[in-house]
């Protein structure tokens, strides 16, 4: 009797989950992905899977900064751009050096050095920006913080883009591949090593990030601040430290994504715009402050883009996801996985 009851409640619970907006969207995405594979062949999915993981990283950083600091970051894409730039300037000399004196170990590690350097520079840049810009605004602004900080990030974005343009010019700085290893086949699809590694890098980073937020003291403090700032202050959490850390972490994630995707997105000053709005699509799709949801959202948006560009034509891959996200924003403003609790964004 008892067993059947729990089983029943489990089934109804599952059914309710499946037929919620989130469940239906995931189901629909899976069906569409399956249909795409059936019609076009699985190679279409490779790019979606590779980029999806990185969009998830971008979105996670974006939603973290919004959750903790209430900043709608328009300059998030610029950290992506800085990441591509740093990775280029670290990796290119290294690979030139490797051409003259080859070393199997270094050639395996060099791309990771580039990505790591990008993440560090991104974190540093984020921390500096928090200290020099956001902290100053926070001291002075009491009302309309969200709008003012948003405009501040607009200014930051303009400065970073054009500063990079002045210092390093507008030419494309890209590489063809990170690893000089021939591609391999999975299920009849040729996948380059770069793509495979980038996918696993994204998953590992996401997992690490999730673990950090969940199980470490600092991560808990960050989540506490995003849930209730006053309460967090009351229990003695050092707000300044958390804010610097959050900004650094978010920028590092964006820079890491940029560095990892250097072979797909050659570095130039405005390369960050597209990742920026894709990250926004993901955040709006899944709702603010939802790290696990960002992963799902990243894949949904990436799949939507690859499918649009395959079935409708390249160039349209921005228009269709935009329309889709606008629809989500209309029907469920708190996002697919968001709760109906009124957040600060509705104030």
């Amino acid at each position, binding site marked *: 009797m008892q067993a059947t009851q729990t089983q029943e409640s489990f089934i109804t619970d599952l059914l309710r989950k499946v037929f919620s907006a989130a469940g239906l969207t995931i189901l629909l995405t899976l069906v569409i992905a399956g249909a795409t594979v059936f019609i076009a062949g699985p190679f279409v999915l490779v790019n979606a899977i590779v980029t999806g993981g990185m969009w998830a990283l971008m979105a996670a950083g974006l939603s973290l900064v919004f959750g903790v600091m209430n900043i*709608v970051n328009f300059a998030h894409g610029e950290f992506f751009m800085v990441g591509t730039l740093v990775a280029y300037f670290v990796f290119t000399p290294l690979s030139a050096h490797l051409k003259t004196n080859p070393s199997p170990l270094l050639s395996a590690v060099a791309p990771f050095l580039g990505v790591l350097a990008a993440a560090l520079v991104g974190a540093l840049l984020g921390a500096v920006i928090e200290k020099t*810009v956001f902290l*100053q*605004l926070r001291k*002075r*602004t009491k009302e*309309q913080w*969200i*709008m*003012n900080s*948003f*405009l*501040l990030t*607009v*200014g*930051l*974005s*303009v*400065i970073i*883009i*054009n*500063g990079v*343009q*002045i210092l390093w010019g507008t030419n494309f700085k890209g590489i063809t591949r990170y690893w000089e290893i021939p591609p391999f086949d999975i299920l009849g699809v040729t996948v380059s090593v770069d793509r495979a590694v980038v996918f696993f890098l994204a998953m590992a980073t996401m997992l690490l990030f999730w673990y950090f937020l969940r199980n470490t003291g600092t991560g808990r403090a960050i989540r506490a601040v995003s849930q209730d700032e006053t309460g967090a202050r009351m229990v003695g959490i050092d707000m300044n430290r958390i804010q610097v850390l959050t900004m650094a972490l978010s920028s590092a994630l964006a820079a890491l994504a940029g560095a990892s995707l250097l072979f797909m997105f050659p570095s130039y*000053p405005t390369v960050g*715009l597209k990742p920026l*709005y894709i990250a*926004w699509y993901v955040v*709006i799709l899944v709702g603010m402050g939802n790290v696990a949801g960002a992963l799902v959202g990243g894949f949904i948006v990436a799949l939507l883009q690859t499918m649009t560009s395959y079935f409708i*034509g390249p*160039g*349209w891959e*921005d*228009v269709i996801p*935009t*329309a889709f*996200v*606008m629809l989500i*924003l*209309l029907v469920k*403003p708190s996002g697919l996985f968001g709760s109906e609790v009124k957040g600060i*964004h*509705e*104030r």
Partner: protein
Amino acid sequence: MTQSTKTMPSESIPATLEVPPESRLQYINRMLGVSRLGLVLVILLAALPFIPPFNREDLLRWMIGATLIAAQAIAFDFTTGYINVVNFGFAAFLGVGAYTSALLAVELGVSPWIGIFAGVVPAAVLGFFTGVLTLRLRGIFAALMSWFVGLALLGIARNWVDLTRGPLGLSAPRFLETSSNRPYFYIIFAMMIVTYVVLRWITRSHIGLAFKALGQNIDAARASGINPTFYRVLNFTVQCAFAGWLGGFYAHYYGILTPQVMATSHTVEVLAIAYVGGRGSIWGGAFVAFPFIFFFEWLRSTLTDLPGLHLVLYGVLLILVMIFYPGGVAQLYELLKDLVSRFRPDPVSTTKVTK
């Protein structure tokens, strides 16, 4: 104490309250809010194309650019400064007006003079729908929604190559056969004045009061009987209509139209000018546009080896204003006016003294 408060009203207040009926001219002046200084500046601006350094063709081009930005900043502030929603897709609506007018001229041979008014219609319709789309959203989410609308419109303009010729650029006929820039300056000058007069009139009427109430607290405004749906959609429609109209000028002045006109960076430019000018002032952005655009154009033409430096300064300035003086130039002006009036004899107190 109590005696004085009792006797004061019966004696002096009726005398001071006897306001002479407002004449029609005074009413117009109150609605438009043109101060003596403002009037002098406008007349100076109108005369500028004949004053020596500014009658050069390159400087006239700068002036036309500045006036166009000034008019856009006025329209931008109409939404940002009043209902407190940033229309982040502003440039896209300008582009819609520009493309409509240019396509009408190219495909159907419609005169640009009619075309720029025809461009208003699709821009206003799209503005209407954007207003409807952003209705349920507040603050920053409405800004994001309008940004997405702008991105979608940009994507359409870029990809519908059969119609817009995409990134290749659509060449539109110009208003006039002349190669002189002076007539164009007077066209855009008149358009700026019309934009100012209409939008200022609306914001000074009871409609503007409703806008302000909605911008400050949407729930309180609703509770006091203001219909948020009507006023927010109205605001968006009017703003986008003006954006489309100004877009028509853009198309028929520059003569070449690429989807880049709808890009976010263009919105950011207008936004920076409007914010440095001062939110909710309508005139602030227009006032700031002239010195700024001149300074930036001068910077661009002297430091040609550093492209983008003027944009870096844009960013720095926007940040500095947001941090240290969010009221912008309009607030600075109010402060100065206050200081001046402190040293001047107060008309009310002098009447009291003579009594």
